């Protein structure tokens, strides 16, 4: 079945030359876009046009383009990763848009994610939170025999669900408070349910929350928006676990 072609769409995009630049919106016309093409392919076509016109192409992050690396971002038409559920921007398709529509594209907006250029933001803050405690530092030895460390299926599944986090930052971008709680919760939760991770559980929760606060992320007000916009649909139940881990660790101090 042939894809429908969008004869003309308007792309209203945030342009910012450098972190210091105040930035502004610019609107571009893009013609003949197949609805079967991906959103990023549409941006590639627009950039190709801009380069041919001798203009500066739009800078945006992308890498694997199959929804697993966590590089792509973009706040499209008022939603992180655009108007669809459980996908990254690279998995968004032009069939979600209509003929003649004006598509608004903004970078992630958070004080902790400063804009580097156009739509690219600096997500080093996530690395810093990870470095504060998102790891297992005890020596776990060689590969143990299968079934030597019994872990229930329920716990293994929950840890795996949390580990699905790709660190894209959609939770921060979509949260009205720019809170990184879902990210930190996922990174704490993926270890908290497993015996190797439990050992440093208290220290991890305290260190990662302290770093998150220090970097200027907001607090969680439990709107639940992050869970719905998360490309991996990570549950806010993990946030409850983070709160529990943190409060218990603090009580023990």
């Amino acid at each position, binding site marked *: 079945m042939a894809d429908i072609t969008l004869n003309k769409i308007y792309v209203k995009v945030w342009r910012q030359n450098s972190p210091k630049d105040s930035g502004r*919106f610019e609107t571009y016309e893009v013609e003949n876009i197949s609805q079967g093409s991906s959103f990023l392919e549409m941006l590639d076509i627009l950039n190709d046009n801009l380069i041919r016109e001798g203009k500066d192409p739009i800078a945006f992050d992308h890498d694997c383009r199959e929804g697993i690396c966590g590089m792509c971002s973009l*706040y499209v*038409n*008022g*939603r992180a990763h655009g*108007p669809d559920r459980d996908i990254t921007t690279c998995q968004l398709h032009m069939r979600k848009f209509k003929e003649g529509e004006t598509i*608004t594209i*903004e970078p992630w*907006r*958070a*004080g*902790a994610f400063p804009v580097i250029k156009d739509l690219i933001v600096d997500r080093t803050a996530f690395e810093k939170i990870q470095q504060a405690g998102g790891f297992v530092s005890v020596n776990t030895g060689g590969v143990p025999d299968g079934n030597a460390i019994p872990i229930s299926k329920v716990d293994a599944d929950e840890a795996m669900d949390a580990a699905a986090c790709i660190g894209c930052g959609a939770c921060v971008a*979509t949260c*009205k*408070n*720019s*809170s990184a*709680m879902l990210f930190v919760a996922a990174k704490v939760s993926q270890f908290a349910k497993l015996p190797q991770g439990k050992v440093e559980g208290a220290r991890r929760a*305290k260190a990662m*929350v*302290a770093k*998150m*606060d220090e970097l*200027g*992320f*907001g*607090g*969680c*007000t*439990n*709107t*639940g*928006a992050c869970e*719905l*916009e998360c490309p991996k649909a990570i*549950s*806010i*139940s993990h*946030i*409850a*676990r*983070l*709160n*529990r*881990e*943190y*409060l*218990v660790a*603090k009580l023990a*101090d």
Partner: protein
Amino acid sequence: MSKGSFLNASIGRKFLMSITGLFLIMFLMVHMSINLLLIFDDSGDLYNIAAHFMATNPLIKIMEPILALGFVIHIAWSLIITYQNMKARPVNYAKTEQGINSAWASRNMLILGAMLFIYMGIHLANFWWKMKFAGDPLLEHITVKGVEMENAYALVSELFKNSVIFSIVYILGGWLLGLHISHGFWSAFQTIGLNNQIWRKRLFIVAKVIGWIFTIGFGIIPIYFMIKF
């Protein structure tokens, strides 16, 4: 680490909001139960006895300043938290569709809280101030079952019988409170960490039910007096 750093941490601040919020919900449960005596006894005796008990019981006297403290902390910390949260996003989005991914009440707890604060001011001026300090001719002492007490029933019922505007203000107040609590109740459990995949659905339903109980429980009183008298 010191206690101070806990209360300065994002989760510590929210922990305070949660426990004060749950404490205020418990107070409101008691408050509403007593209020409902207004519509179950038109002589006013039941309500007057309960009001007299609340005004004179030593345990209640001890709880009064604790309750006031609960309100102060809940309000003060809400302002601190909101300020911190607003600071976290220096540049706002030109276009957002938050309605798709979250409930209005969950995003606007401060606005609901501010409206409830105004409502509380009106409410305290109407009743609490008169009962405690200013006095009112309607409060003239009566004797119920041999005990002399203020006629609190007269003060409350006359307001609703005579003023449609105040009745509407009180119905709206109950509705705003219901909205506030329909998010606040389950949210408090989430923040304390008492939540998981199974309980979140339960808590969410319980929060909605409690919200509606407050909306109807407080709202029905002015409606009763408007219709019956």
